[in-house]
């Protein structure tokens, strides 16, 4: 039996069509994926992301331990609330998961990891923490709501005023001051200017028993509930990878277009996978993850093979129909020496695809 998030009843009430996603009952859409997608690109939408796993790490040894655990360097987190995208690698340089790390206060960090990888992440983290002076605390009592879109700022202000009239002005002052990839704690809410859509927006972690009230305040502020379907089309258009599709333990940051998230300086930082990745860092990886566009009719899907003539040069890792571009887009992993366009096998047909950059849409506009 799949678990329910604290917003289960809100989804039912909003007409959500629920599916099992990594052991959670979550809405795939509330009627129309395309309407939800467009709401986020043009106005504002919200997602229940309570299934994601929040892990707090605290103690004197937290910082040096995270510097070993993560491929990106948490010493880049200077001010309380600063956030950082990183991979968590095994010793072979394979990607165990991707995550966001926040500095909450000195010696206290928060990791937000994927739901599908929760068990293996916790196992790995626990093993890595053996004998280290830190506490690891899974915050399963927290719900999380992502509010995304060009009107997210205004909608959140309206919703927060209704959610807690006293103190809303002060809270709003702090939220308004957030830069991208920064978070703050106000009135028991942990609000981060982060997201998975390529639009402005916020991710709000809050106590489970407040989630329904917050959801209804956001609904009243005109925010469109959005399901997992729109979450996938939005992230793909925005050039953002999905763990399990575009990366996993058999891939590395360098063949997953995530080399930018590996911090090689300072040289003495011995993060997991550093030695294994040194060759790819210096000489490049054998494969690369690129964007693809299908100009003909059809839909690119994960697993479809890419060819140049008779030679198989790669495969699609994530594909969908782009509601913004009105054609199919995808990410694919392809031999690094391959340049230019190729063909995709869709059922019995081979169709030409264009190789592109991975970001297709930013701030509502096709690139």
């Amino acid at each position, binding site marked *: 039996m799949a678990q329910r998030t604290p917003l289960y009843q809100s989804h039912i009430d909003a007409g959500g069509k629920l599916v099992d996603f990594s052991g959670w009952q979550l809405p795939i859409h509330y009627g129309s*994926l395309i309407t939800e997608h467009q709401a986020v690109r043009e106005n504002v939408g919200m997602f229940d992301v309570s299934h994601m796993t929040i892990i707090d790490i605290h103690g004197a040894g937290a910082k040096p331990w995270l510097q070993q655990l993560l491929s990106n360097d948490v010493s880049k987190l200077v001010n309380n609330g600063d956030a950082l995208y990183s991979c968590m690698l095994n010793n072979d340089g394979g990607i165990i998961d991707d995550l966001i790390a926040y500095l909450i206060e000195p010696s206290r960090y928060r990791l937000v990891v994927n739901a599908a990888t929760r068990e293996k992440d916790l196992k790995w983290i626990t093993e890595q923490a053996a004998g280290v002076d830190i506490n690891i605390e899974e915050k399963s009592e927290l719900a999380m709501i992502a509010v995304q879109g060009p009107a997210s700022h205004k909608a959140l202000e309206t919703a927060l005023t209704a959610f807690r009239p006293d103190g809303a002005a002060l809270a709003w002052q702090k939220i308004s001051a957030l830069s991208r990839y920064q978070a703050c704690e106000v009135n028991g809410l942990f609000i981060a200017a982060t997201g998975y859509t390529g639009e402005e927006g916020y991710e709000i972690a809050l106590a489970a028993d407040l989630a329904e009230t917050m959801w209804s305040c956001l609904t009243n502020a005109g925010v469109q509930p959005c399901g997992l379907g729109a979450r996938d089309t939005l992230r793909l258009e925005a050039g953002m990878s999905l763990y399990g599709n575009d990366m996993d333990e058999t891939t590395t940051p360098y063949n997953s277009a995530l080399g930018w998230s590996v911090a090689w300086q300072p040289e003495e930082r011995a993060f997991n996978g550093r030695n294994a990745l040194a060759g790819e860092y210096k000489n490049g990886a054998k494969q690369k993850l690129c964007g693809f566009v299908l100009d003909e009719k059809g839909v690119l899907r994960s697993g479809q093979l890419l060819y140049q003539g008779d030679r198989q040069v790669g495969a699609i890792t994530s594909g969908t129909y782009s509601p913004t571009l009105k054609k199919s887009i995808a990410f694919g992993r392809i031999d690094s020496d391959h340049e230019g366009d190729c063909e995709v096998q869709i059922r019995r047909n081979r169709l030409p695809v264009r190789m592109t950059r991975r970001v297709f849409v930013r701030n509502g506009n096709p690139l």
Partner: protein
Amino acid sequence: MNIPAELRYTQSHEWVRLNDDGSITVGITDHAQEQLGDLVFVETPEVDAEVSAQDAVAVVESVKAASDIYAPVTGSIAEANGALADEPELVNTDPYNNGWLFQMQPSDGTEIEQLLDAEAYESFIGSES
């Protein structure tokens, strides 16, 4: 849920309309289009192809997934709905009329009688959910 009484149905959620000339028109049901969500691409069968009942002959793709459409009876493909190339959403908005997928000439005119009637289809989808 719209399940027109005059049509026949399959357990794979196609509807079948018997035309005056003995040909049949095939589409997907209102229930099916609702389950699939917004359709963005339809691959219709090749006209004149000889097909057997339950062959996968067409594909409808929503944003999320591709689904096969099966021939409800044995016969030849007589026509495909060309309008769906540019307007696949017709299957969502008008599944029983402008959203039809293809027409067939059945080899055996009585085969259609073995398909579900509206009442049987309604109880079938009730038992599925």
